[in-house]
């Protein structure tokens, strides 16, 4: 009796899990499927198609005309820089606010954390004006500044938590050895923060990788455009060719998905750590 019920329970469990998995994945399978066909095959009524002829040239078009390599390079570069800056700045500020002794430490920390509450899009209009007047529009800075600014509060929040949990003894020993604060921060504390750095890096990366409103407002020439532009530009450029549009979407999504699948365990851990704390 009991085993029977357990079996049914197990079956229900699997059904739920598989159903959710199908819902999460099927749209992507659909995307890839149609990206290999031709445009007019879209109008068939079945769920998936078996393309008459597999059209890899859709991907060639997407790759070449979508400026895929350039935009990918820009995305990677900008996001990496943003991550590095966020990590360094948040360690420095986090250490100063948590370990150093000064009157305003809590005030400064609170002020810096305020950024978490500010909706990033509300700064679009005034920032456009500001960036113009200081001449950073259409440069890498126009993206780096807001990306760093709006990831910093979260990074700082996580960092302060982690710094707190590091035992003081190590630092005390370092001080005895005559280390300065900078060396303590960067040579003693930073290595201990490795898992937290990973978390902050992953959160920052996920926040900014997908961003495009700012990119499309602040950038005009292809020099610094990021990956989402491949998709945005294609819909106009190939408005009459759905299959190519699908190909460019699949192609644009691919790098992040592939990296995620490879680093899946670390990313999951990082997100879990960051999100639960944050």
């Amino acid at each position, binding site marked *: 009796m009991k085993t029977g019920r357990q079996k049914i329970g197990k079956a229900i469990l699997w059904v739920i899990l598989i159903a959710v998995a199908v819902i999460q994945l099927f749209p992507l399978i659909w995307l890839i499927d149609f990206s290999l066909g031709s445009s007019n095959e879209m109008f068939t009524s079945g769920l998936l198609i078996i393309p008459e002829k597999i059209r890899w040239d859709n991907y060639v078009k997407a790759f070449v005309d979508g400026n895929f390599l350039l935009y990918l390079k820009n995305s990677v570069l900008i996001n990496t820089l943003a991550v590095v800056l966020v990590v360094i700045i948040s360690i420095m500020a986090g250490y100063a606010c948590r370990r150093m002794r000064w009157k305003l430490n809590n005030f400064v920390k609170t002020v810096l954390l305020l950024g978490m509450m500010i909706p990033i899009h509300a700064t679009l209009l005034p920032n456009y*004006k500001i960036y113009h007047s200081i001449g950073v529009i259409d440069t890498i800075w126009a993206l780096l500044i807001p990306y760093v600014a709006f990831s910093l509060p979260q990074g700082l929040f996580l960092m302060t938590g982690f710094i707190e949990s590091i035992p003081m003894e190590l630092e005390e020993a370092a001080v005895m050895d005559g280390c300065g604060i900078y060396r303590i921060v960067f040579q003693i504390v930073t290595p201990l923060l490795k898992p937290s750095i990973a978390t902050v890096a992953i959160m920052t990366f996920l926040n900014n990788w997908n961003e495009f409103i700012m990119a499309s407002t602040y950038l*005009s020439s292809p020099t610094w455009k990021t990956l989402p532009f491949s998709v*945005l530009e294609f819909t106009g*450029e190939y408005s009459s060719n759905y299959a190519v549009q699908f190909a460019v979407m699949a192609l644009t999504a691919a790098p992040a998905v592939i990296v995620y699948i490879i680093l899946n365990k670390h990313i999951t851990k990082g997100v879990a750590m960051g999100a639960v704390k944050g």
Partner: protein
Amino acid sequence: MGGTKNEEKLIAALLVAAMSVSVLAGCGNNKKESTKTDADSKTNTSSEAGNDKEDTKDKEDDSTGDEVTLKLFSNLPDRKNGQGLVEQMIIDEYMDANPNVKIEVEALDEEAYKTKFKAYAMDGMPDVVSIWGQPSFLDEVLDAGVLAELNESDYADYKFISGSLEGFKKDGKLYGLPRNTDIMLIYYNQKMFEDNSWEVPATYEDLMTLCGTIKDAGITPIAMDGGDGWPMACFLTDLLVKVAGTEHSNIISNAISTGDFSAPELKSATQLLVDSAAAGMFQTGYDSQDYGTTQNLFTNGQAAMYVMGSWDASMALNEDIAEDIRTNIRAFTMPVVKDGKGGANDIAAWNGGGYAVSANSAVKDEAIKFLNYMYQPDKLSKYGWENGVGMSAQDQSEYMTGNETELQKQIIEILNNATSVSGTPINDCGPSAFKTAIESEIQGVSNGSTSVDDFLTTIGAACK
């Protein structure tokens, strides 16, 4: 339509006549005198920006060979078909002829383009830009003085159709050049019509009946780009022309200047749109579908008709479209409505899109040189015609070969027979706040979520 000399002359003459009517009619009130005097007089400094320093004098003679980069901001993202292809062809030619000049193109969809244009207008624009010679777009832009003044006398032999430049002027000064003569059309799939023995409707009632029949046959009657708002506003303008005849432009300009849209003609035209949508004239979800999706519905044979301007006539030559569809695209204009004052040949048409040069461009002379190059009659106008784009704003009669697509011939005929031309469509007649309001609200009224009266009140409020 063989294309004998006489016929061509006639066409040219009619075009001229038609477009002058358009100017007199279109949004009449906001235009003061537009005599073409002192285009290059430097004492008259009504424009705020400093665009009157080095103006137009030395533009021909500075091809010094210095490296110059021109930024062109375009509303034509598809660079392989139609208008975008024509633009790109000229750019490539220009760069070949002037190796020291590099032209960088940033192209966005119309809606995205207009938004970003305004962002650019705040602080510094690309050198050459697409513009629309319509109050909703140009008035505020010209007030801010972000566009460079052009010397009108330079264009004396560019064969611009008389009156076509008017929308691009302010206080008699010219700030841009028109690219097209746009006509609102209802494209249809001739083969589909013949196969089902459907007839091109003569009246709007016929059109409604026809749409019913088509719908019953399981086909979408009309593909309507309702997600964008402006095509429906153009459709509404077309209906208004049929309801109110040549009076329509006075009605619109009165309504916009007073904010009172309660004129019976406006009501009944809107009501027609609402009834049509309610009867299922447009595809399911028309009010959320964009340009590309809508066009594809038609070009993939899913819809029998398609409402769009004459610039889309290049569909007939687009290789991405299946041959049996692309060669069968034909067009008619909005049929007459019952008790309407507008006749079959009162059409909705205007000179809308065009180009201008940024006033603060660092390479303004080169930019104007390029602009002038584009508008040499054998460039935009000729290439446009050869690539099946609708009508340009210049006299195209000498490029007519007789080998035009059937669709192009139809469009010529429509213009030929036009007794009056609407001028600027309703959404473009007011300030941009009005444009934003009507293009959003028209979705709500057409799908029945707001009443006609509420719609007219809301768009009226946006004029104040």
